[in-house]
């Protein structure tokens, strides 16, 4: 198997042989998650090759790169959503607050509560708006009384900027909302379980520009309260919402650094080519 990987890295892209950039230096706020030399295999195929990234509390981290570069796969490693794919194998070290999340002692159900996720396509439950938000707190037992639960629902919707639009129709079906509202509902649903990290997998790719702008604004407001990692196809979006950007190409991390540096003065030729629209 190692032979296979060596072949792939040497023949497909010379850039892979270059050394990965060092992790972000100190002074970026407390570290929330760290990954070291993460490899992901789908059966025989290697999807991620030795990725090391630190996610800090105070910054929004964006993963960019062309389709199929492995950025979504890597994102799904951070809350072990890849566990649901039987052929996916993850190696390397990923920690949350210093704890190895792939350690046998880690409870995956609790991990996913601590590391929430928002998906590409808005996927509210076919239940009422209230029940969509209340589901997470209910299964984790976060509220002991009805009032507490009502309070969680309201604050979550407020943080997601949806309260004003739905406060008078909490019993309506969540699927009856517009696409952008549904996505904000999904963000509110993730917030409701009080996570430490929120992973967003191309949250705006199914939305129109106005809805996209609202989500971006929301990400700005949530920054600092939660560590946010966002995967996006849209480089302007990465530039707008993030403070740290990681550029992936063919399963490797090409460059990781301060967003403004990546976009104005990338150190790697591949990154420059991608950002200037030469490919991707």
């Amino acid at each position, binding site marked *: 198997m190692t032979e296979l990987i060596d072949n792939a890295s040497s023949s497909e892209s010379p850039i892979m042989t270059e050394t990965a950039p060092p992790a972000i230096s100190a002074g970026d706020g407390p570290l929330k998650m760290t990954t070291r030399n993460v490899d992901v295999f789908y059966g025989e195929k290697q999807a991620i090759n030795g990725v090391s990234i630190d996610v800090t509390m105070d910054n929004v981290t964006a993963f960019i790169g062309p389709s199929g570069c492995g950025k979504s796969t890597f994102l799904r490693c951070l809350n072990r959503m890849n566990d649901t794919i*039987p052929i996916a194998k993850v190696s390397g070290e990923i920690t949350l607050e210093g704890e190895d999340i792939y350690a046998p002692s880690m409870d995956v159900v*609790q991990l996913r509560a601590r590391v929430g996720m928002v998906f590409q396509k808005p*996927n509210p439950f076919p239940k009422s708006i209230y029940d969509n938000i209340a589901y997470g707190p209910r299964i984790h037992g976060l509220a002991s009384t009805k009032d507490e639960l009502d309070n969680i629902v309201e604050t979550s919707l407020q943080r997601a900027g949806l309260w004003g639009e739905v406060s008078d129709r909490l019993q309506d079906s969540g699927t009856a909302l517009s696409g952008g509202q549904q996505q904000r509902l999904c963000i509110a649903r993730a917030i409701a379980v009080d996570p430490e990290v929120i992973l967003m997998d191309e949250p705006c790719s199914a939305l129109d520009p106005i809805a996209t702008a609202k989500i971006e604004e929301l990400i700005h407001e949530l920054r600092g309260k939660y560590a946010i990692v966002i995967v996006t196809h849209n480089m302007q979006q990465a530039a707008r919402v993030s403070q740290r950007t990681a550029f992936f190409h063919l399963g490797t991390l090409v460059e990781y650094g301060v967003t403004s540096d990546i976009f104005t003065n990338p150190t790697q030729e591949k990154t420059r080519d991608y950002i200037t629209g030469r490919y991707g």
Partner: protein
Amino acid sequence: MNSTAAFVEERNPTDWQGDAMQKRIRKRYASERRFKALGLGAIILSASFLAFLLIVMVGNGFRGFTQTELPVEIDFPAMTGGASASQFEGANAVANVRTLGVRDIVNTSVQIQYGEQGTELFSAGSWQTVQSEILDNPDIVTSKATLYLPVESEIDVAYKGDGSASAEEKVAELEGKLSTGFNSNFLFNSDATDPMQVGIWGALKGSLITMFITLLIAFPVGVLSALYLEEYAPKNRFTDLIEVSINNLAAVPSIIFGLLGLAVFLNLFGLPRSAALVGGLTLALMTMPVIVISGRNAVKAVPPSIREAALGIGASQMQVVFHHVLPLALPGILTGTIIGMARALGETAPLLMIGMRAFIATPPGGIVEPATVLPVQIFLWSDEVNRGFVEKTSAAIIVLLLFLLTMNALAIYLRNRFETRW
């Protein structure tokens, strides 16, 4: 030589108004019309089969719900030696009526009015009608009363217009006295040798108990199997084998399940013969694969995004299954269950193998008492020599169809209630 590029350049503009094109368009419309006509024809054909079936069944079966009667005047005070109405009320009513000798009273009264051979005109069990009349309405014994009693089966059939020559003669003799009444025996009695006395209640109750047991076992086991296979089991050679086996089981002829039930439930486990319990278990074996297959399809149809959404906020696998997947799959599962249960309700062959074809004259009191079911009862009556059973068979079919319709209506109602709008 024409290169491809040259060919493209030389291509003539399409003549949309040309004759050839117009002809092609006409041809396309014609074939569309033909297809529509064929479809409509198929619908009409199947609808007329259905209408034919219903008309024949209802036409024949309707007569099974009526009986031909003759009036008999009974002088109760003289015959009973002055019995009082209070004797036939309260706790001892049944015992007292038994000691009264109703059969002799009826026979004597009949002989007075219709001569020495008069009793042959009446159904052998017609005295039971009088007995139940006394229990229902004790005041009757204090005076003379005229009761309408069911006639003998041959005469009944002849009066309804389908009898033998000798019976027709008797009908002609009794012209003016014969009348038609509602056959309450048919709804409240069980199997009997005299077609005037048979009823459907025993078989109906047997069917109810059997279906209940079938549902109780097949539904949870089938749904849990489907959920496990779809949501938990790894996809490998072994689970493929299970899938193939289940698909094959659904296609196995039902009589083989009967043999299985005979070998396992009766011979191995020693459960009682002819019991609704064994019938229900056997039919559950037959219904389960249908529920598993439809259940798996319904579970598969639940979008993966819902599972991801629930997993993403930290729901456990079981919470994902029971809070999200099962509720969304339930309408589909219920559809499969309706199909399976409807098939089980109409099943005769496997039940014959486990002895449910016995002559059951009293309705089953529990799951281990001898019972029969509607389709088996229909099968048994259709085999009878006595012509009186023909209309009873049709009437039983109507009851079976009504049972089926009720069951399906209930299931469809439940399905619509659980249906989630997206």
